[in-house]
């Protein structure tokens, strides 16, 4: 059970970020509005304080009492002293200000919050006018609020609009998803690129590339299966007929002969199935065994040992070319030992099959500059150069080889293994014999440094 990973929704994410962005913008606007409104209020109210101070100096202020009814007047406190510090006038006796000796504007902290105080000297009187700061703050706050309230009201509307906008924008993606969903191994047609937003085009192009590769691979596989089915039918037909003859046999010698043929037919069918499996296994991407340093000399000696009996039975001299072949230093390539053994086995098998009795088959391992060459040369009839290109095709059999056992897959397998090892394979003349120029198959690998002991 895998841990549940929350499924991300582009739409939800976009809406979320948009909302956060809007709110941050609104808050910033509110702060900016508030700060500017406060500055303006400060300037305005400071001017009002100064006005008030100059206006009260000329007034007869013998009585203690409120100062008229001008707006905001109740928030103003006016105190007047004479030179001797005797109070002349207090506008609000219950709200006393600390006497402030500094002239001009000052902000003073009191028990009832901050106050703005303006102190001036007029004649022989000291006039002090004060106002609580929170009046100004409230004014600034209410101005800021009135600016941002409509913005806040717009947020839900914007969210809804964006929600539908994204849905519209996402529609091509949903159509694309449906189109991809309709694709199956039998319909790998490319997706239409028309009418798609620019952002989605690269995705569709990548998908079409993948679809194309898939279709090619599937076609190759279908062709392979069709070929294989067709090729299997021949040995199976033979087995079928041989079994019918065995059933019909009237006496023991006839039956024994028929069964011997049946066994040969089964051997051929089995060999073909084995070769088909080997070929399928060497298909790219089937098994990706890592390549590791392999000594080709070892491989050559192993494969020769495996085929000595067969060579003896055919009367063919099989050996490793080179005078001091056994003492040779390791010739290392980067490869898959099992595949390389299959490769050389197939080449030696072919050579033994086509070389007449009394002939010779040489396996060679040599370093050629920065390449390593593995070669098999025989003294058989050779292959005409015109056929060289076709011999690596699946199920291709050289003309005149119908009476020789073989699946037509050996060299196709060799080619697959060569490709997997980034090597090359070339055909050329082999050891000239009395039946023709012979065949030489040379596989060249990129050399690697021998592995540390």
């Amino acid at each position, binding site marked *: 059970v895998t841990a549940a990973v929350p499924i991300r929704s582009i739409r939800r994410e976009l809406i979320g970020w948009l909302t956060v962005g809007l709110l941050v913008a609104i808050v910033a606007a509110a702060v900016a509005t508030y700060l500017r409104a406060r500055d303006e209020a400060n300037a305005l109210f400071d001017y009002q304080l100064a006005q008030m101070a100059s206006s009260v100096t000329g007034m007869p202020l013998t009585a203690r009492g409120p100062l008229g009814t001008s707006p905001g007047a109740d928030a103003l406190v006016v105190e007047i002293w004479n030179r001797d510090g005797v109070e002349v006038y207090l506008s609000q006796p219950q709200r006393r200000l600390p006497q402030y000796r500094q002239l001009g504007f000052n902000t003073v902290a009191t028990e009832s919050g901050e106050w703005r105080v303006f102190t001036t000297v007029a004649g022989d009187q000291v006039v002090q006018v004060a106002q609580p700061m929170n009046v100004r703050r409230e004014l600034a706050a209410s101005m800021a609020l009135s600016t941002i309230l409509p913005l806040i009201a717009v947020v839900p509307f914007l969210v809804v609009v964006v929600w539908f906008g994204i849905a519209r924008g996402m529609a091509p993606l949903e159509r694309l998803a449906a189109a991809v969903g309709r694709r199956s191994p039998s319909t790998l047609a490319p997706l239409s690129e028309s009418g798609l937003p620019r952002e989605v085009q690269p995705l569709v192009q990548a998908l079409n590339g993948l679809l194309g590769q898939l279709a090619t691979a599937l076609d190759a596989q279908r062709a392979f299966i069709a070929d294989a089915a067709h090729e299997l039918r021949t040995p199976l037909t033979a087995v079928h007929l*041989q079994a019918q*003859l065995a059933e019909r046999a009237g006496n023991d010698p006839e039956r024994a002969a028929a069964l011997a*043929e049946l066994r040969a037919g089964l051997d051929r069918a089995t060999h073909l199935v084995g070769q088909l499996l080997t070929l399928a296994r060497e298909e790219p991407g089937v098994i990706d065994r890592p390549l590791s340093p392999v000594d080709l000399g070892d491989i050559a000696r192993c494969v020769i040992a495996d085929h000595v009996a067969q060579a003896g039975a055919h009367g063919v001299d099989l050996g490793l070319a080179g005078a001091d072949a056994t003492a040779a230093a390791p010739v290392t390539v980067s490869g898959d030992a099992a595949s390389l053994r299959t490769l050389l086995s197939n080449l030696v098998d072919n050579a033994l099959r086509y070389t007449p009795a009394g002939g010779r088959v040489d396996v060679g391992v040599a370093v050629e500059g920065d390449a390593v060459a593995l070669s098999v040369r025989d003294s058989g009839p050779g292959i005409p150069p015109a056929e060289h290109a076709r011999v690596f095709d699946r199920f291709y059999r050289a003309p005149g080889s119908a009476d020789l056992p073989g699946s037509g897959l050996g060299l196709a397998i060799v080619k697959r293994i060569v490709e997997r090892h980034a090597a090359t394979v070339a055909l050329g003349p082999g050891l000239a014999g009395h039946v023709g120029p012979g065949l030489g198959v040379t596989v060249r690998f990129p050399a690697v440094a021998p592995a540390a002991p």
Partner: protein
Amino acid sequence: MRLLLAEDDRMIGASIGRGLKQDGFTVDWVEDGRAAELALRENVHDLLLLDLGLPRRDGLAVLTAMRQRGDPRPVLILTARDAVADRVAGLDAGADDYLVKPFVLDELAARIRALLRRHAGRAEPVVTCGRIELRPATREVRVAGTPVALSAREYALLEALLARPGAILSRAQLEEKLYGWNDEVESNAVEVHLHGLRRKLGADAIRNVRGVGWMIATA
């Protein structure tokens, strides 16, 4: 009846040849298209069994050329290609029948007999001439309703003579029907087998035309 088998697979060719021989046919086997054309020019075979995937010359090309020459002999295609398009192509190119590998030998023999029968212009599976009845399917021969046991060679001779009632077949023509390429032709064999036939069927069943050959008595 002598058949030409064109089949490039050694095992399949050998098995078909042996099986058909057991069914009383004489079989000559070639392994490529060119050899098949050469053998067809000899004009000794009654029917061609043709594999389509032949080396050197494709089976369909052999068939087309044969029909272009006006060769009417029946052709039965034996192939692993079982797609409808392949069958249609084969039959349209002039084949008379089509058998997909793998097949059962008995069916192959039955189809060959049916083709030979139709080619001879007969619908019924029994060849009748006077008192003599020959059933190719079972290789049974009756004279006036009584079964007669014939050797393989005797049967082949009788079948050849019955194929063209009234025609005189030379000794060489009869030998062609009896022996494939690899068979050793025994001297006097035709006379020996004809003698056996006459003994079993009645002396008047086969008439000798001196210096020309033999014919089946139609009366």
